């Protein structure tokens, strides 16, 4: 018995040693003996394609700044938890991603470094950035991050199914409703539904903006969900489902609406730039068209954006700024976005192929963010919306509950 355990132990040690030796060969070369400034860069990595694009960008930086080495260590999995720990321990990375959704919390709690003085000192021009995206990272008049990329929502439609029903990609709400009806009548989506619609405010809110409504008032001091504009938008959005013209992702048997488009369980979906790479990787055979969201009373959209920021407790802020300014600069952003992984947040960077429908929305995209300490309110809002979708409560109840939850959070 003892000998067997020893053998197993020896085997395990052997395996570890071999794997370790093999893996060492895969590690990047250590820095050369020349004294270089090391800057740490952190973010999340959603796909190997993203990691590859970022490494290209980093290589571009290291070429033009030979005295710098970038230590890129993505956090794989739970980014907010890991970053919280680093901030609390006052050991943030030099440059890191900040999602617009968490930006209000991080900015108000003072873990991000204001960039105004660095911008001024280095005569950095922030005008090329789309103003609405930049505003997502402003707090009390200071800039806390520069947007590195973004995506709005757009409408993706299945070419074959729309052709079968004899409809073109709709341009207004009324046309959207008609198109869905025609798709249903023509039975163009067997085993599915004409539209894929989820009880998710990260989609619904775009329609609310189009109806001249909003979640919060302009100063972000009070909720504005009980307005008629919001009511109409919610009724329009949810109306597809109650009329049998749309299905939620779970009813269609998919994980999200992008998958519905791919598996041809829906003819019309509303997703952002992320769906393009997904479709070409997973469902290359499905032919679809990207169009702007159908227009409501006004044009309106959401902007999902991420910035590069520097930590308040970062030690070498000058070096961090050098990296940051390159990454969001013209050349860096071009390297990052040229494959279409993401859309440039600057006006002066070329649009990647096939993405113009997205970029046209920059003028009326509202950043996807609210006030500090608001995440539970959004969870509540989504849960109430789900209840409304499943017929478990009335629209008024839903809006009242969301309103009171928002008031509690806003204090």
């Amino acid at each position, binding site marked *: *018995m003892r000998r067997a355990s020893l053998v*197993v132990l020896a085997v*395990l040690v052997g*395996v*570890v040693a071999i*794997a*370790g030796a*093999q*893996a060492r060969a*895969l*590690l990047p070369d250590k820095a050369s003996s020349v004294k270089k400034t090391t800057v740490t860069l952190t973010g*999340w*990595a*959603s*796909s*190997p394609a993203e990691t590859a694009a970022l490494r290209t960008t980093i290589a571009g930086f290291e070429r033009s700044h030979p005295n710098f080495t970038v230590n890129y*260590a*993505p*956090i*794989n*999995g*739970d980014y907010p*938890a*890991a970053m*919280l*720990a*680093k901030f*609390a*321990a006052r*050991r943030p990375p030099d440059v890191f991603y900040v999602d617009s959704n968490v930006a209000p919390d991080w900015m108000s709690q003072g873990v991000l470094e204001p960039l105004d003085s660095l911008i001024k000192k280095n005569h950095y021009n922030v005008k090329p950035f789309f103003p609405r995206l930049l505003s997502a990272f402003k707090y009390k008049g200071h800039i806390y991050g520069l947007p590195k990329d973004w995506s709005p929502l757009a409408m993706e439609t299945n070419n074959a199914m729309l052709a079968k029903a004899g409809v073109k990609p709709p341009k207004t709400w009324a046309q959207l409703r008609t198109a869905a009806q025609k798709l249903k009548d023509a039975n163009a989506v067997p085993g599915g539904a004409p539209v894929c619609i989820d009880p998710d405010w990260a989609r619904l809110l775009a329609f609310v903006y189009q109806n001249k409504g909003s979640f919060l008032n302009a100063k972000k001091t009070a909720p504005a969900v009980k307005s008629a504009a919001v009511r109409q938008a919610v009724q329009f959005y949810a109306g597809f489902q109650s009329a049998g013209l749309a299905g939620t992702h779970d009813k269609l048997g998919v*994980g*999200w609406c*992008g*998958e519905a488009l*791919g*598996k041809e369980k829906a003819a019309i979906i509303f997703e952002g730039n*992320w769906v393009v*790479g*997904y479709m070409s*990787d*997973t*469902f*290359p*055979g499905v032919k679809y068209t990207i169009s702007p969201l159908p227009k409501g009373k006004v044009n309106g959209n959401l902007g999902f954006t991420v910035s590069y920021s520097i930590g308040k407790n970062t030690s070498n802020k000058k070096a961090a700024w050098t990296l940051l300014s390159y990454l969001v600069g013209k050349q860096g952003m071009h390297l990052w976005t040229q494959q279409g992984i993401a859309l440039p947040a600057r006006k002066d960077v070329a649009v990647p192929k096939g993405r113009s429908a997205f970029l046209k929305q920059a003028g009326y995209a509202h950043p996807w963010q609210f006030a500090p300490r608001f995440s539970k309110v959004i969870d509540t809002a989504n849960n109430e919306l789900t209840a409304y979708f499943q017929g478990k409560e009335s629209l008024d109840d839903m809006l009242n509950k969301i309103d009171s939850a928002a008031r509690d959070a806003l204090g």
Partner: protein
Amino acid sequence: MSEPAAPPLAALDELAAGEPVAVGAAGPPVGIPGRARSELIQRLLTYGALTALALLFFVPFIWSVSTSLKPLPETANFSLLPHTWTVAAYKEAWTQYNFARYMANSAIVSVAITFTSVFLAALGGYAFARLRFPGRNLLFFVVLGTLMIPDQLRLVPIYRMLTIFPVTHWNLVDTYQGYWAIRMVSATALFLMRQYFLTIPRDLEEAAVLDGAGYFKTFWRVMLPLAGPALAAIAILEFQGTWNDFFWANLLLQSPQHWTMQVGLAQFFWSYGTLWNDLMAASVIALLPVVIVYLFFQRYFVAGVASAGVKG
């Protein structure tokens, strides 16, 4: 350890009748002619039912393996067997994602933690079960109390502590040592060992004491060999628990060269478009070492002989 003779067929009869059978039960004598055929049928039914149940537990694994052998577009349909078989996902997972490294890291921390956990839990469990010291019950409640805190609450204080460790000022973040330190012994393991030692009759210990053995010797020579099944349970539990841990590995083993399997796999779970075939290939690769460890240690669960030594 020699295994006892197979229990009489009657025990299987009782099993077939759907009643739980006590360990080592001796039934009435068998071999009555005419019963042979019905016994065979009952036996087949029993094994059939057990196999059906086992397959039910196995179904997800079967599906994982089959999905891992499909090309990506085919994972969209829910068939059990692939139409086109391909090992591309395994090749891709192994080359594109540094799984050799991840596996080495997981192995290092899992083995280290399993070793210390087993030893410390046995030692501590023995003390709580058999030794008398003031405050024993209170300390034991402290042990139980540690189980009642969710990890999320410990996130910030532990991370801060590890950036500047008290007294020594080590920075233990992103090191194997730091990760090992916070998991080197688990309260569940200690608790299990205490319960197990409580059930062992005292005769052997008393014999050892009379022979002049000290406390540690009694523990090492007498109690530990008797605790085979419990030690095996802990070893399996700790190895699997560490191998599958995501929360602390995500927090404390941050640089890519320190990533464990779960952190490496997280890319698949957290991104928008799930690459099902890669995910399943990676999961299968990740599962194999745990399966091997489990099969190795479960041999220590021998039917009905654990306390053979006590009788003598």
